[in-house]
């Protein structure tokens, strides 16, 4: 058993590609070795900006010899079959074995030295490597066929035990030599084996294990902050990115001018993170402090003083820009900013963003005045909606689009608008995804709901941009999920279809949209699907949602979900499961019965018929009254009362009685039974 080391050295690999590269290297290495019959158990993959490293431990020194047996044609088969088999196996006829009239080819494959397998595998891995973006370079790039890599590939180390695996790719030959840290140890270093690789590099200021570098950054940044009496704002994405930019990470704390803290903390954090890859820090009270942590790639001669000073200057220039935007933006009110929305196209067929704002304001006001969003002042809802998009034309959001909403909230408060309006402007994009906070403040709910209903109806209904497959360019699925989440979180009671119609009714003719029987159906199906997705995590069964949706006409999502949940509880009981079995049996019989001939008997032919009839007479009104009163658990109980009689019925009678009038009577009973069940849910949609 022998250990194998492979190092592929290159010019700086983008940080964001390193995790993918490790996975790719593992996949290709395993594929190559498994194709040669070598099992790889203990595999370690590391990355730095300048190298990908792989260590496979305990590889066999040779692959096992294998004997492969292939069954061929019968010896009596036509000669073409035999010829084909000989071609396939590369054997002559006298090398085949005739076993009872069937040809067999026995092919012995001798074992191969693992070193030979590796020598072939390495070039294949390098040539087959897939990068998100790759390039050509150097003299070889005069030919189109030259090797492509993420950045120029500069060296290969391949050592099996202590032996070099000789191989070559595009003029680069494998060797024992690699390089240490670019500045601390620029010369060549010689690796002896997989065993000394990581330690030799460490001695040359390279920590090859990316996870170790990540912990150094994570812990070092926290310590640097703590030493200054501050608390690091954790950011795992930054930890990974900085580990991908350094071979010898050294977190350093710097301070910036306190005066910049007048800029909102989110802006400072974003500037520091996105542009400079710095962490930010909080003071003991949890407020953003005037500090940052940058991650250097060297142990500087002066302890990092110059580095910190340089980084502080760069950050100061960035924050000056941010402060300039913050001050410029506040020279106008949001209402003044909003005027510019008339110059921004929302969609070429759907007018400008100003047009959209007008629609949303009207809808938000209507949702409030109709009481659909309870306890909401319609005038505030309108005002908040009118200003909600104004920050899109501010300098700050132009620079940092991800601050949309948030900046509007800040500017609204700064100009003295009420908290209800400012909060609504800030939070109206929520929820952005599953797991995001769902608004509950009434004005916010009205604006957030109106905004999403507008996006949805404009694209889905008016210009027919319904999502297909993986394509959802206008994020309509997300908008629909947002609508559902807001409705359920706030228990908003309304007919979804009517509200969707309200959002677009003025424009239907202009866009030639047929609502009744067409668009409304597409919408119902779409929302049913989204509801299933939205409820999947909560463990609500999708088939039960279908069973309730299939009844039609139910688009009060709160009520619908209450019914689904009662149904799900019922289906988990023995009564529920048996009733479903009874229903399926009844439905089957009815399906096979076809046209019923003869007149049904006037009275129940037997006691079992009479018992079922009596049960139905009692259950039907009880179930429908319970449904009417939204007492869905009671409705399920009413159905449960049918279980014993339907079981006894199937036990005691034969539906297809030779007497047509009895048969007709019993089919009638079953039809009433399935009808009663359908009053609660369409059981034919239920699985199991």
């Amino acid at each position, binding site marked *: 058993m022998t250990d194998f080391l492979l190092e592929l050295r290159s010019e700086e690999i983008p940080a964001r590609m390193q995790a993918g590269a490790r996975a790719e290297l593992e996949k290709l290495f395993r594929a190559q070795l498994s194709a040669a019959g070598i099992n790889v158990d203990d595999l370690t993959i590391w990355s730095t900006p300048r190298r990908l490293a792989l260590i496979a431990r305990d590889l066999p020194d040779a692959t096992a010899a294998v004997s492969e047996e292939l069954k061929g044609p019968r010896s009596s088969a036509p000669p073409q079959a035999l010829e084909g088999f000989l071609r396939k196996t590369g054997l002559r006829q006298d090398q085949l074995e005739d076993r009872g009239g069937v040809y067999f080819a026995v092919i012995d494959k001798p074992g191969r030295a693992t070193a030979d397998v590796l020598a072939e595998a390495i070039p294949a891995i390098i040539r087959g490597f897939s990068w998100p973006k790759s390039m050509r370079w150097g003299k070889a790039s005069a030919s189109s066929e030259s090797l492509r890599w993420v950045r120029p590939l500069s060296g290969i180390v391949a050592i099996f035990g202590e032996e070099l695996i000789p191989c070559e790719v595009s003029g680069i030959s494998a060797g024992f030599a690699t390089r240490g840290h670019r500045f601390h140890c620029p010369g060549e270093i010689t690796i002896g084996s997989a065993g000394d690789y990581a330690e030799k590099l460490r001695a040359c200021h390279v920590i090859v294990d990316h996870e170790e570098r990540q912990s150094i950054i994570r812990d070092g940044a926290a310590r640097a902050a703590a030493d200054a009496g501050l608390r690091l704002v954790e950011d795992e994405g930054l930890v990974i990115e900085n580990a991908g930019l350094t071979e010898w990470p050294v977190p350093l704390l710097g301070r910036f001018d306190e005066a910049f803290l007048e800029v909102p903390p989110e802006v400072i954090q974003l500037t520091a993170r996105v542009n400079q890859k710095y962490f930010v820090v909080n003071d003991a009270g949890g407020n953003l402090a005037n500090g940052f942590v940058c991650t250097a790639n060297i142990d*500087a001669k002066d302890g990092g003083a110059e580095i910190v000073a340089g980084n502080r200057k760069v950050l100061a220039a960035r924050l000056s820009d941010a402060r300039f935007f913050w001050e410029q933006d506040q020279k106008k009110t949001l209402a003044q900013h909003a005027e510019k929305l008339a110059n921004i196209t929302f969609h070429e067929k759907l007018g400008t963003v100003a047009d959209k704002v007008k629609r949303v304001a009207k809808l938000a006001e209507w949702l409030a005045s109709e009481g659909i969003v309870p306890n909401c002042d319609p005038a505030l809802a309108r005002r908040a909606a009118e200003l909600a998009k104004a920050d899109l034309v501010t300098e700050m959001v132009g620079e940092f689009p991800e601050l949309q909403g948030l900046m509007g909230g800040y500017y609204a408060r700064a100009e003295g608008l009420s908290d209800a309006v400012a909060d609504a402007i800030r939070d109206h994009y929520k929820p952005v995804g599953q797991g995001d906070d769902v608004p509950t403040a009434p004005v916010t709910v009205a604006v957030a709901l109106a905004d999403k209903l507008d996006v949805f109806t404009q694209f889905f209904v008016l210009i027919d941009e319904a999502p297909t497959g993986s394509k959802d360019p206008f994020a309509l699925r997300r908008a629909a999920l947002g609508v559902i989440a807001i409705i359920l979180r706030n228990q908003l009671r309304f007919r979804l279809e009517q509200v969707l119609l309200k959002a677009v009714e003025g424009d239907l003719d202009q866009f030639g949209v047929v609502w009744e029987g067409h668009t409304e159906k597409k919408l119902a199906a779409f929302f049913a699907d989204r509801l299933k997705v939205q409820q999947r995590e909560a463990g609500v069964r999708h088939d039960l949602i279908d069973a309730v949706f299939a009844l039609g006409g139910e688009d009060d999502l709160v009520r619908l979900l209450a019914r689904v949940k009662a149904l799900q509880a019922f289906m988990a009981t023995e009564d529920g499961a048996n009733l479903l079995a009874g229903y399926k049996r009844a439905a089957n019989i009815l399906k096979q019965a076809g046209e019923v001939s003869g007149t049904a008997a006037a009275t129940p032919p037997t006691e079992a018929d009479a018992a079922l009839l009596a049960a139905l007479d009692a259950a039907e009104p009880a179930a429908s009254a319970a449904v009417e009163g939204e007492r869905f658990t009671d409705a399920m109980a009413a159905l449960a009362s049918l279980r014993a009689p339907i079981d006894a019925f199937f036990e005691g009678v034969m539906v297809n009685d030779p007497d047509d009038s009895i048969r007709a009577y019993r089919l009638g009973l079953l039809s009433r039974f399935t009808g009663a069940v359908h009053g609660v849910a369409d059981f034919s949609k239920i699985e199991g």
Partner: protein
Amino acid sequence: MADGADEKPLSFQDMILTLHAYWSARGCAILQPYDMRVGAGTFHPATTLRSLGPEPWNVAYVQPSRRPTDGRYGENPNRLQHYYQYQVILKPSPADLQEQYLGSLAAIGIDPLLHDIRFVEDDWESPTLGAWGLGWEVWCDGMEVTQFTYFQQMGGFDCKPVAGELTYGLERLAMYIQNVDNVYDLRFSDAVGDVAAVSYGDVFLENERQFSKWNFEVADTDSLFAGFKAAEAECQRAIAANVPLAAYDQAIEASHLFNLLQARGVISVQERANYMARVRDLAKGSCKAWIDSQSERWTAQYPGWTL
């Protein structure tokens, strides 16, 4: 900020002279700026056209670069409508290009064990030249000081072989080396005897004021539009007449006039893409004509080379 405690950091012009000496010693022909208004050193035909084809090509030059929309009337310490780029083109890209580049930083006084030099992913694309490449922005203590690119395509054609391009932002680098916060405070030249030192502001502050005003307020848009059309037509004529170098001059001219029109705020968002496509067509057409005019010779001198 230089290495030795007593050593005075290089003046702006000495920094340029040092880079000239450095790249000259590495075999580069030191060219002079192209005599036309361009937005970046990449527009110099010594980069655009010469990065095409199989011939080795190693040059370095300073290129004054004009970005009309970046003008701030001399009031912003970092933004200029006219500034300098130092451009190095090495074709084919040498295996030790990174090391050569780092050597040039050391030559102008940046110690890599005192300052944090980093290669941060940044892919370069010039939609108006139909060009792209992969590489990095080089950071020094968090500040971008150089764009480092391996050209993959120029004018829509594969670069065979690939050229390495280094674009130093000279003012930024000088501000860093001299440790000044305002570009106009840079020492352009040192005092010698009775002759006083000259600052960057002495040379350029008035230019920034006047050109910002002209770019944003004064330039006659009718003649800019007319000039754009004329350059476009002349470019096509020159291509047809098989004088691609002259054609490319007109593509440069059109590109700059378009930048001026943007500064004047008379090009709408929708029109913008259209104008850029027109400039790109001119640049691509010039590149194609250049290749057509040279490929016979290239093929003869470099057997096996294909477009």
